[in-house]
């Protein structure tokens, strides 16, 4: 029979990377609005 696969983890999503991405995108947004 079929074996259910339960792997939905985001393996490549590094927490440090997520924070850096958020900071960077916020800075870009702030820069765009100040220009």
């Amino acid at each position, binding site marked *: 029979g079929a074996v259910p696969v339960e792997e939905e983890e985001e393996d*490549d999503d590094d927490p440090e990377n997520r924070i850096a*991405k958020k900071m960077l995108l916020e800075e870009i947004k702030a*820069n765009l609005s100040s220009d």
Partner: protein
Amino acid sequence: GSFKAENERLFAEFLECCSRLTEEHPEVIPFLASRHQKASAEFLASAEFRNVLGRCLTRVQSKRSKVYVYINELCTVLKAHTQRRKLALSS
């Protein structure tokens, strides 16, 4: 000696590498490029910048999952060396 040419090559390589990894946010690369443009010529030709660039490039190539960490690091360094704008104030 000046590291200008070498730094330009390393920066272009870093941009190319990152642009493939940040396709979901196409605004990131132009932002990094504008930070680079605004940095002082002295810093862009320095050994310090070469070291930062070399380190970021090596890291992003081995740990792609941290691409934004390295871009953020480079942006911070470039921001710290932004050319001071001369205010042309006439009274």
